[in-house]
């Protein structure tokens, strides 16, 4: 009798425990701790910060910074990083949890439309006042929903040593690197390098324009920014529900250049990865490499010195080329979760402010992460591409703004990317790119905003 009671009790206990374990973590997001728009009140000391980081390459640096913050203030900062290309799905999953991220990021107006209901108004926050220009805030309906925390630059990175070698050679018709200031010059240089690639000891002028998902954003998003930028500029607008595609011929010209004067056959581009292009560039197999300031740590770790590196604006033969600068902007806006508790929101705001004002924070952002931050206390960056951008801007060149944040949807980008791949391989024609670009924009815009 006793034994069986014990057995029964044990069985119950085991069953109970297992059920309890099964239940843990499945709890519905309770509404008790979800208060909207409570950024005013709240005690930062009682709150905690959960930052869902977008940039995998900076994960270690963020973890270290979070630890330092805890040592200094005692406030817990959790940093999690979404795997590359999965930020949106990770954010969706995390936002559903009880302990949702208190600090997350959106990529601009289109990203904001997705998460607006979750973004607290930051107009009265300290960090907003720290911005060097209010242009770096993501504003809508008179409210500040996001704050850009890093400014980045992209263009055509070049191997200075190799390009100089070209300029010094007898077949070069452009004798000085500074003379490359238009699409036509760029094309001349690239064509001549391609023609004499054996003499220069390279495989091609441009690194492979890989269309694998690890690399296709360089063309479907970043390169596509240029025709959009010039069209917006002509019309004096900052976003549109229907793009005209006025500069698509220029887009074709630069894309043709990338795939013709390249290290590989255009048909192979479909499966070329981002690392392929990186390796080609750092091992001196190609002279030009379209990428951005975030690539600095990768190329220097591969052994390239600052003196080997330069960056040219992406000339597509449109606008005032003599005064065109690099493409500079941000697609990284910090947002504070408005559904987090008041304490957590306060703690998060304090952490953000600390990152961009304190000695430790600004140093970590500048040195460990290589970020250029648009805040008053920012440390000068060591990043050579950023320096080039500053020099060009100081010399009166107009930076090309980042308009790809207004692209209507991921589907649109993927459609353009697919069409570009097939055009490069010769299995598709340029009309498909045009259709995906122009008609696709209209359809996708309607879908996303309908």
């Amino acid at each position: 009798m006793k034994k069986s009671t014990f057995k029964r009790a044990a069985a119950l206990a085991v069953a109970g425990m297992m059920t309890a374990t099964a239940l843990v973590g499945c709890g519905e997001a309770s509404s008790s701790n979800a208060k909207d728009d409570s950024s005013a009140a709240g005690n930062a000391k009682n709150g905690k910060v959960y930052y869902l980081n977008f940039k995998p390459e900076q994960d270690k640096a963020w973890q270290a910074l979070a630890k330092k913050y805890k040592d200094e203030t005692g406030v817990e900062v959790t940093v999690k990083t979404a795997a590359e290309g999965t930020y949106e799905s990770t954010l969706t999953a995390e936002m559903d949890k009880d302990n949702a991220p208190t600090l997350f990021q959106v990529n601009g107006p289109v990203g904001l439309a997705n998460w607006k209901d979750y973004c607290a108004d930051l107009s009265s926050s300290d960090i907003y006042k720290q911005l060097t220009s209010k242009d770096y805030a993501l504003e809508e309906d008179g409210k500040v929903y996001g704050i850009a925390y890093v400014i980045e630059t992209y263009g055509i990175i070049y191997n200075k040593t190799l390009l100089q070698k070209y300029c010094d050679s007898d077949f070069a018709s452009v004798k000085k690197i500074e003379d490359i200031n238009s699409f036509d010059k760029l094309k001349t240089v690239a064509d001549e390098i391609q023609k004499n690639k054996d003499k220069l000891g390279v495989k091609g002028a441009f690194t492979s324009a890989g269309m694998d998902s690890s690399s296709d954003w360089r063309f479907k998003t970043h390169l596509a920014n240029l025709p959009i930028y010039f069209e917006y500029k002509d019309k004096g607008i900052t976003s549109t529900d229907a793009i005209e595609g006025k500069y698509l011929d220029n887009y074709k010209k630069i894309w043709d250049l990338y795939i013709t004067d390249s290290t590989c056959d255009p048909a192979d581009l479909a499966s070329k990865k981002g690392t392929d292009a990186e390796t080609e560039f750092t091992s001196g197999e190609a002279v030009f490499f379209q990428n951005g300031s975030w690539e600095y740590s990768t190329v220097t770790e591969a052994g390239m010195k600052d003196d080997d590196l330069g960056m040219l604006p992406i000339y597509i033969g449109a606008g005032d080329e003599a005064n065109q600068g690099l493409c500079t902007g941000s697609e990284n806006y910090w947002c504070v979760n408005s559904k987090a508790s008041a304490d957590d929101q306060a703690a998060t705001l304090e952490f953000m402010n600390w990152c961009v004002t304190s000695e430790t924070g600004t140093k970590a952002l500048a040195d460990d992460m290589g970020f250029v931050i648009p805040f008053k206390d920012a440390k000068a960056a060591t990043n050579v591409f950023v320096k080039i951008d500053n020099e060009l801007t100081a010399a009166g060149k107009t930076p090309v703004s980042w308009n790809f944040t207004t692209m209507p949807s991921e589907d649109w980008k993927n459609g353009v990317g697919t069409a570009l791949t097939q055009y490069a391989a010769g299995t598709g024609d340029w009309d498909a790119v045009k259709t995906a670009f122009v008609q696709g924009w209209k359809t996708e815009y309607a879908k996303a905003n309908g």
Partner: protein
Amino acid sequence: MFRKPKRKIYFLIFVLPTLAAFLIGFVYPFFNGIYLSFCKFRTTSDAVFIGFGNYVKAFQNEGFLHSFWFTVLFVIVSVVLINLIAFFVAYALTLGIRGSNVFRTVFFVPNLVGGIILGYIWQYIFNGILQYYGTNLALNANFGFWGLIILMCWQQAGYMMIIYIAGFQSVPHDLYEAAKIDGAGKRQLLTNVTLPMMMPSITICTFLTLTNSFKLFDQNLALTGGAPGVVSQATGTTVYQTEMMALNIYNTFYANQNSRGVGQAEGVIFFVIVVIIALVQLYFTRRKEVQQ
């Protein structure tokens, strides 16, 4: 006297953890998912009911309709091929060849590798070959289709083979002897003795291959990712030629800010289709099963 009711209590107690896990991990998300397919939402906790709008959009989604027909074609070809291969490999390995245990292991091992890894490995293999012909998996839907078929056959045939081997071994020898005495040839033995006795294995294997092929996601994502795409002249949207239903649903879900509910509705439609097809298949193959 006391035993029986007590046992019942124990059953209940021991089934409780699994039942709870099933309710929480399956039944609740399932019904919540159906509800969400009628909603506009960002996260599952902020859903707003909107009615049938998502279903209307799902049926207007060209990509979804295309993925349905692509999936159907894929399922037909892969179910037939996988089962044929598995059946004959199992047959060969029950003939008592030397080293058949080694072969069984070898054929089974691909099944233990994850779909994503498999997809990438085969992508390298196929692209490595196709490179010599100046083309690529991402450029031709036929390559993508047959690539998926080869991958799935390689992965699944081993598993089905194990089930078929068990089936072969369960056919009683006296049945063969009796049939031989009655003058049955090799062919008649196969069609009149082996196959009817194997029907339970065939039911299981067709069911598994059918549902597995229908729900295929990882391998599809890793191997082709849906490429190549065809741009529609009228709308400018791209329809991905080798995108199967599960991948299309996933992509739709994250397509834009309004598309979560549409993806969810597609998921419910997908569920209904898989259930209907699986039940019809079970009904027809079960009818052919014989009692031993």
